[in-house]
């Protein structure tokens, strides 16, 4: 017994939407960042499902690239968050004062 491919796509779309809404409404940089990771993982799910439907490996290969790039982004993003916390003792995206002209 196998789950139809359509369900995977619906799940992926739902995850992507949850992530997108999260980025837009949450204010903590770390939570926003986690939401982006959720979106990227929904992309992976979509890619792997389509690779299965299309019966070729391109999608699975692309999923690996997405994982690697996401890891690189985590490294850079957390470094920026740590530095922001050192300077400001808060990780909110709000309260940005210095840059308002």
């Amino acid at each position, binding site marked *: 017994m196998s789950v139809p491919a359509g369900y995977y796509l619906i799940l992926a779309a739902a995850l992507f939407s949850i992530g997108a809404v999260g*980025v837009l409404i949450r204010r903590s940089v770390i939570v926003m960042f986690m939401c982006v990771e959720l979106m990227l993982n929904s992309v992976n799910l979509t890619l792997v499902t389509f690779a299965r439907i299309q019966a070729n490996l391109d999608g699975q290969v692309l999923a690996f690239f997405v994982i690697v790039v996401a890891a690189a982004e985590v490294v850079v993003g957390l470094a920026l968050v740590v530095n922001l916390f050192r300077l400001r003792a808060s990780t909110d995206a709000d309260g940005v004062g210095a840059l308002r002209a």
Partner: protein
Amino acid sequence: MDVDQATQIDLFALAPELAVLGASLLVLLIELFLHGPRKRFVNPIAVLGVLVAFGFVVALWLDGAQRSSFGQMFVVDDYALAFKGFFLAVALFVLLISYRYFSEIRTFQGEYYFLMLAAFLGMMLMPSARDLVMLFIALELVSVPGFIMAGLRKFDLRSNEGAMKFFLFGVLSAAVLLFGLSIVYGFTGTTTLEGVAASLSAGEANPLLLAATLFVIAGFGFKVSAVPFHFWAPDTYEGAPIPVTAFLAVASKAAGFAGLLQVTFVAFEPLADVWAPVLGVVAILTMTLGNLTALTQTNMVRLLAYSSVAHAGYVLVPFAVVQPGDAALNADAFSAVLVYLFAYGAMNIGAFAVVIAVARRHPGRRVSDYAGLGQRSPGLAVALTTFLVSLGGIPPLVGFVAKLAVFFVAVEAGTTLGIVLAAAVAINTVISLVYYLRVARVVWMEEAPEPEPEPVQPGLALGFTVGGLAVVTVALFVLAPLLWGAADQAVLIASG
């Protein structure tokens, strides 16, 4: 894909990229063994690497043959070489304007030059990429070093917040782009640009697929700071070290346009009916909003930031007149984009070079700091005026040629949208002149504040950049047919 074909690697085709990669690693390594002020000597190493890469690009161009590696994922043709030459020239000037700025800050020099070269490596892969996977990797290789470089002034909260904003918008748009990409792959079953185009022109237009193409285009829209994805640009530009700002405003934006050219003119060409009008609206919004916001800016870097948003709008105009199957019109639109990007690169880096020179004396970067520059440093003042007037699109400077190219292709399309776009370009050119000439007036007409500040001394590297680019800005107007010819040579559109 055939395994033998996929593993075949043409090293000569990859030589420029390998040179940049080698230089970036060398810089990182050598910096470890240098101490104190001697760390600044990593800059000439980076410059040397760029020059070697440029030599390889010239050799490939003289060779003339179309080459490919990694099973057609990486292609070297006239289009790719034109962009690589452009990117390497930009890299050279960005390195030259970085030299004194970073040797005076004295921190992170090895890291900075490493990241800068890594980003340029991504840029050089971009025009060669003929596969959505490769395109995505190249885009990220440009973006991720950019996030770090924007936040390189770690001690400064503005730099950090600008980088954070850039980063969040960047990863969000990457996710959106990837989601669109995954759906395109799902419907077409391939990731090569040609394959996608062939599959799209054969099949029915599915609404989900149309949405996916717009997702992909939106991902590039962030990179080129088109409205409504431009929010990061002014803050990031203001907070970042100024050479990095020049890099983001010119190189990274041009790379975004290179990717957008390949995606729209090759892969999604059969669906141009859908995305071209959308890009038309985006183009009008981008140029109008950029120009109107720039009018009220008192900070020179923010003014140039909004001006660069407006210029992204002008470059988007030729995209909006693309029609599926009309090869002659599409080729003209394509070369108009190239002409605009090359012209924009020369004049905008020049403007930032002058800003760096003046910011040494006046760290506040206010427009009012430029008062009396005409008396204090006539050479810089003449160059700055040249760049600003060229950005405004007045003859006899290259900015005029660029505006004309975009304007003509919009008229040539003959559609209602084309006429509206041409009118928008004309109106926006007039609006933009208000703030460019306001700066020029401050430079020449206003008296310097008392006590008179000392003259600005740009130093050798910066002086060479400013002078050289000013000459280029004038010379490319005289040699406009040459620029046109080069752009026409480099056109890459769907062959189907």
